[in-house]
């Protein structure tokens, strides 16, 4: 029958779409994995770079990324969570709050390079922190802030109103209700959002381009005011600067694999958590 032929063709095309998607994305991972594995060794992971970035390892680069991400989270998680709690639990329900909510959602979609410029203007220049871990962490933190706020808000809003009422009706105060009932119930959702934003912050390049990153820095960072090497920027720099493109390319493969592994691992945890919540709630 004619309509079945159309259906078969249509379904085949859709099947081709997903195969193509998985194929192309798989190709990226395949290339980075196989070529990256050629350079990754214990030495590569634990030694500092040598010979103008053409030999040795990338340990300080990995450490730099960890510092920046950690710094961003120390700044963004408490602030973002507090903001979400305020908006969901304390703020009066008004048009102003609604506008704030919409702007936060929108800021989550603002290009990361814009956050980089903000960091440059405010932290590096205006507050005079210079190009440093501090500036970079704060910039990444502000990038993560809207993500954390909207994920936490969603999780808090999903807590049924009825159990808040139950808690209050037992003589618990508002804060006790939030601390003992609302936050524990919303925790898995909040955690998912926070972990996803960790993955995002760890992989971002544009915000640290002018606020934190250095192509080469001897040794490990000494204070929060020192410049720092970071995996994503390092990949970019290895490909666009320096004098030994081939040797640098090999190292860049290694860095890409480490970054990819790091980000996929972190996001994987978050997605696993979310999947489990979904099946738990039905």
């Amino acid at each position, binding site marked *: 029958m004619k309509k079945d032929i159309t259906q078969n063709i249509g379904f085949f095309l859709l099947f081709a779409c997903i195969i193509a998607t998985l194929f192309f994305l798989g190709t990226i991972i395949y290339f980075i994995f196989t070529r990256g594995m050629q350079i990754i060794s214990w030495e590569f992971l634990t030694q500092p770079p040598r010979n103008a970035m053409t030999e040795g390892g990338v340990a300080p680069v990995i450490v730099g990324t960890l510092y920046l991400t950690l710094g961003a989270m120390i700044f963004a998680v408490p602030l973002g969570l507090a903001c979400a709690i305020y908006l969901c639990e304390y703020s009066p*329900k008004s048009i102003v709050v609604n506008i704030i909510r919409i702007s936060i959602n929108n800021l989550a979609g603002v290009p990361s390079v814009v956050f980089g410029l903000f960091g440059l203007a405010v932290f590096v220049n205006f507050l005079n922190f210079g190009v440093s871990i501090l500036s970079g962490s704060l910039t990444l933190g502000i990038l993560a802030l809207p993500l954390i706020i909207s994920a936490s808000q969603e999780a808090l809003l999903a807590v049924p109103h*009825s*159990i808040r*009422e*139950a*808690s209050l*009706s*037992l*003589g618990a105060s508002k804060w006790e209700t939030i601390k003992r009932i609302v936050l524990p119930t919303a925790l898995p959702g909040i955690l998912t959002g926070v972990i996803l934003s960790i993955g995002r912050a760890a992989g971002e390049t544009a915000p640290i381009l002018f606020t934190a990153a250095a192509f080469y820095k001897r040794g490990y960072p000494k204070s929060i005011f020192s410049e720092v090497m970071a995996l994503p920027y390092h990949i970019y720099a290895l490909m666009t600067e320096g004098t030994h493109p081939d040797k640098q390319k090999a190292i860049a493969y290694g860095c890409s694999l480490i970054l990819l592994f790091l980000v996929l691992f972190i996001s994987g945890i978050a997605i696993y958590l979310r999947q489990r919540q979904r099946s738990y709630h039905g």
Partner: protein
Amino acid sequence: MDNDIKMKADKINFFYGNTQALKSVDLNIFSNRVTALIGPSGCGKSTFIRLFNRMNELIAGTKLTGKIYIDGEDINSPCIEAVDIRRRVGMVFQKPNPFPKSIFDNIAYGLRVNGIKNKDFIEEKVVQTLKKAALWEEVKCRLKESALGLSGGQQQRLCIARCLAVETEVILFDEPCASLDPISTGKIEELILELKKDYTIVIVTHNMQQAARVSDYTGFFLLGELIEFGRTQDIFTAPKDKRTEAYITGRFG
């Protein structure tokens, strides 16, 4: 009327924004008695009982005039905290709303927020209230399991037990059986009759048989007004108001 007055509503007017939900309601709640409030949906009976433990404060844009007393004390006076009133006046809601915690923690919650830290005391209290709520036999082996795994009727009895643990004096039931099957409903009704020895009970229901079965006093609400209040048997056998009679005989509602 020969009983002690536990709570008293005096000329209550209540507004949601510009809509008046309650119009000049006066009502006495007697100690150790069950008072049923009946009436068609939207007549203000749920709104009314939520005033007794100040739950309506949580809704923005509402306004209350008139006074509510417990043991002669004005519950809305500025020197009294809502949390203190709610500890004395507990509430069981329309839909069972256990916390997503273990059965044990659900009951212990009210004790813990009220500053009790003694573990033995909490444990003893949990067992005692579960027994009082006729739930002990069914859950004694699974106290550490999530309360969300219980059936609807069990959840509702857990919510009642949760209320008993904080040693309230008054328990407000807001259509406690609305989402339950007849067997669970029967168990809850038995429990209410049992509890009135120690507590003062107010129950909102739109099931008239239920009001007749469990209550000592009945108030009939219509469009935000208290039409008639009296002993349950009088209301059901010899209503004074035509509208009460019409409702009870099933002509509307």
